[in-house]
């Protein structure tokens, strides 16, 4: 389990691979670090710090800390950007600290290491510890969760890599496991259909039974009208069938779709919402204005007496699902600035012509 030392070539290859993934620009630093360090160094992780407990914390304290932080950082619950990463660290920390054998081994190892430090497990670091069963703890971090989630950190794998893998071979299934991934899609892909390519990281066992993250890029013809929360299925793209049974079929790959924020439209199921600014006189007097819709610019009739928040429905101009959704246009009143004499005069003329107290209902 000794890792190869860094070479200039492997560093450059890591850099190239990281840069080649332009579509992940927002998390490039993290992915780069990941890539850069793969194969020759791992970061020492302070599991006690991750869980916010003292080194002499009791089992009950560890469990309590885990539950509290898990609720806070669970990727289904939390909207924080690094929730997924933190939850993964947390699951990993809990997996070690809840298990007396792993905790003892980790404590022994942790002496003299600071978090973030480069770390290589000393040879035979785990000698003298007895491991119960193939899997010392139960796998928490979901190896095939959302795209890019991956299993454990390199640090964890360098320690418990061989021991924690039993569960992946649990059932003697005749067909391969289904895999799951989650992707962020631009709204236009659903509105117009079209091909998009995604890079997924797939955990795979290498010849020594160690979990490796393998990347694969695939292009998918997005079905027009797909909605957030729906899944697309790629038959046969899950895990291969168990080697022992040639007749078994490979599993399927299920991809859950969510939309990246769109500058114009907010999707709500199959309907779309658009905020459309109008002037006070357009809203008060009624008129026709141009508005964007997914299928092109249209003339929209603004009824006289409209106000901020008035909702106008354009039937069938939402997401082209079956049946198609609608486009709701919510009016916003935009005030022209009173930044010259003419504009100020016009506001004053309106004020003197129209006695209007918008605060009458407040009793003032």
């Amino acid at each position, binding site marked *: 389990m000794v890792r190869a030392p860094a070479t200039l070539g492997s560093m450059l290859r890591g850099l190239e691979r990281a840069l*080649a993934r332009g579509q992940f620009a927002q998390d490039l630093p993290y992915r780069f670090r990941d890539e850069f360090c793969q194969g020759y160094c791992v970061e020492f992780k302070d599991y006690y710090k991750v869980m916010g407990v003292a080194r002499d914390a009791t089992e009950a304290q560890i469990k309590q800390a885990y*539950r509290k932080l*898990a*609720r806070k950082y*669970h990727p*289904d*619950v939390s909207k924080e950007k690094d929730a997924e990463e933190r*939850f993964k660290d947390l*699951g990993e920390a809990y997996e070690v600290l809840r298990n007396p054998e792993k905790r003892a081994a980790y404590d022994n190892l942790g002496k003299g290491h600071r978090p973030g430090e480069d770390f290589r497990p000393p040879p035979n670091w785990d000698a003298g510890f007895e491991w119960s069963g193939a899997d010392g703890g139960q796998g*928490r971090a*979901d190896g095939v969760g959302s795209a890019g989630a991956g299993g454990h950190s390199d640090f964890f794998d360098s320690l418990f890599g061989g021991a924690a893998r039993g569960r992946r071979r649990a059932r003697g299934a005749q067909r391969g*496991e*289904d895999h*799951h991934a989650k992707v962020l899609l631009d709204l236009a892909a659903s509105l117009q259909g079209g*091909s998009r*390519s995604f890079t997924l990281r797939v955990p795979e066992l290498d010849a020594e039974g160690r979990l490796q993250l393998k990347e694969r*890029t*695939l*292009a*998918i*013809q*997005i*079905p027009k*009208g*797909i*909605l957030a*929360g*729906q*899944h*697309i*299925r*790629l038959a046969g*793209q899950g895990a291969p069938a168990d080697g022992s049974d040639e007749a078994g079929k490979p599993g*399927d790959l*299920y*991809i*859950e779709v969510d939309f990246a*924020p769109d500058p114009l439209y*907010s*999707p*709500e199921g199959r309907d779309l*919402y658009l*905020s459309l600014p109008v002037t006070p006189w357009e809203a008060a007097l009624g008129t026709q204005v141009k508005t964007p819709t997914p299928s092109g610019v249209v003339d929209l009739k603004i009824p006289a007496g409209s106000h901020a*928040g008035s909702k106008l429905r354009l039937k069938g101009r939402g997401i082209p*699902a*079956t049946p198609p959704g609608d486009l*709701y246009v*919510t009016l*916003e009143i935009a005030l022209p600035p009173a930044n010259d004499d003419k504009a100020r005069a016009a506001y004053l003329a309106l004020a003197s012509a129209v006695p209007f107290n918008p605060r009458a209902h407040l009793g003032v």
Partner: protein
Amino acid sequence: MSLSAIPHFFADIVEEEHELTIRDLCRICTTEREHIVGLVEEGIIEATRDASGEWHFRGDSLRRARLALRLQRDLELNLAGVALAVELLEEREQLRRALRARGA
């Protein structure tokens, strides 16, 4: 990697193309039958019974079932807690979208 080297796939939308049996759900969610039964009994997902008594699920049960199973496993919740969490998460998502639609 050149563009032509990327494998290209045509895909179906699971929710629209498929009605799922309990066996399908168990397989896709990698779980046991009893867990799916628990979700139905708690009202987290809905099933219809055909003439032979076999359960059928609408495609959109998949997302809810997976969310519920993740919450149950990761947060060590009981089923009533999962049901409440799923409902509140969906309500929160709706409110967030409504806020976004108002330009907030």
